[in-house]
Every structure is written in C-alpha cells, then in structure tokens.
C-alpha cells in the first residue's frame, strides 16, 4: 500500500495543504487587484487601472500554476473561496502602498512553504517554488519603483496625473 500511495502522489500532504492555502492567497491577490483597477477607473487613473487589470490576470496565472502542480503531483487542488475584498482607498498612493504590503505578505507566505517543504524533505515542492521566490522579488521591486517614482513626482498640482501617466512604464 505504501508504494502504491507513493506512486500516485509525489509530494507530502502538508505541502499540499500549504499550496492549497497559497492558491487561496493568489486568488485573493487577483481579486484585490481587480478591486484596485475598479477604484483607479472610477477616480480617473486610467493607466494605473490598466496596470492593475494586468496584475489581476498575472495573479490568476500564479494560482493556476499551483493548481496544475497539484494536479501533476496527484494532490487534491481546491478551488478557493475568495472573500473580504477591500474596495476603499484614500488615494492612488494608498493603492500602491497597499499593493506593496500585499506583495510582502505573499512573499512571506511562499518563503514559509519553502521552509516547511525543506523541513519535511519535500524536494519537489521546494524546487517548484523556486520560480515563485524569484517572481516575488520582481513584483516587490516593481511596486517599490513605482512608490519611488511617486515620491519624486510628488502629489501636488498635476502630480497625480503625472504619476498615473508614468505607471505606463511598468506595463509591458
């Protein structure tokens, strides 16, 4: 029975649980960015809205990457319930500050799964997460660059519209 089970599943159940948790987090990130896109559209920050629409799509891709990994490893991927999406922001600066905060949380969560996988000797999960570790470095960096740009531009007068226009640089 032991070998049969191992032949049908190539990761540990604890890793599977954590990865199902991460599926939920990525889905939550996707929904949060969609809410931010909505806020940007309604407040006249159309370039930033485009940026967040794209982010929302990327987060869904992250989610599907993990989902498919659980399929490939014989696990039980769970379609996530997404609740508690914030739609209230005080300014475009608030939106990007919340984005960085959110990405840092995601990074911590991924590092935690890597550490747990390592402890449990689950090499497959650990290696699978390599891509996510590097992706998070890039995502955090993008938002940090945008926040730096906001700082330099300033929010006085036409500053806000200039900020929005410059966000285009980070949409590719």
């Amino acid at each position, binding site marked *: 029975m*032991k070998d049969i*089970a*191992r032949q049908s*599943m190539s990761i540990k*159940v604890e890793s599977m649980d954590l990865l199902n948790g991460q599926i939920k987090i990525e889905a939550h990130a996707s929904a949060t960015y969609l809410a931010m896109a909505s806020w940007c559209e309604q407040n006249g920050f159309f370039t930033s809205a485009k940026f967040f629409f794209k982010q929302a799509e990327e987060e869904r891709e992250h989610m599907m990457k993990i989902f498919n990994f659980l399929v490939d490893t*014989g696990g*039980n991927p769970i379609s996530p319930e997404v609740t508690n999406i914030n739609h209230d922001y005080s300014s475009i600066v608030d939106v990007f500050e919340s984005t960085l905060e959110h990405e840092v949380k995601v990074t911590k969560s991924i590092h935690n799964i890597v550490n*747990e996988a390592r402890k*449990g000797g689950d090499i497959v999960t650990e290696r699978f997460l390599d891509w996510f570790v590097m992706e998070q470095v890039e995502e955090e960096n993008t938002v940090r660059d945008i926040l730096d740009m906001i700082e330099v531009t300033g929010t006085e007068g036409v500053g806000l519209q200039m900020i929005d226009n410059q966000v285009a640089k980070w949409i590719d």
Partner: protein
Amino acid sequence: MSLCQLLSLRHKVMNIAIEDHFHGDLNAHGFEVLLLCNKKHLFILNTLEILDLKNLIDQSFISMGLSAKTEAVIQ
C-alpha cells in the same frame, strides 16, 4: 477507496469545525454528515467518531509515507 477519494475525505474531515460541537447553537446535536467516494456512501458521525476519524486519516497518511510527520499524533 482510491487515493483521490481518500484525499477528498481528508479535506472534508479537516474542514469540519469541531469547536462548533462544543457550542450550544452552532452544532446543537454534535453530528456531521459526510458524503464519500463520489457520493456513493453517506456517513453520519458524532463528535467522538469525527475525532477518531481525524486521527485515523492522519495516521493513514503517515503510514503511507505521504506525510512529513513521522511520529504518531496525539490520541
């Protein structure tokens, strides 16, 4: 029972809010209904049976070598 069905049972059992059994209103009678193996079986279990089942499932995954845990979990 296939491993997929066992994983799905594990998910259902893990999602049971056992604390609700000790709360007068949330789960007044302390029963859980479980549908297993693509709805082939239906089980009605009480609090102690759920706790036993949780333990049994935990131990099963350990003995199959699919858990990072190695020692027996608390009874």
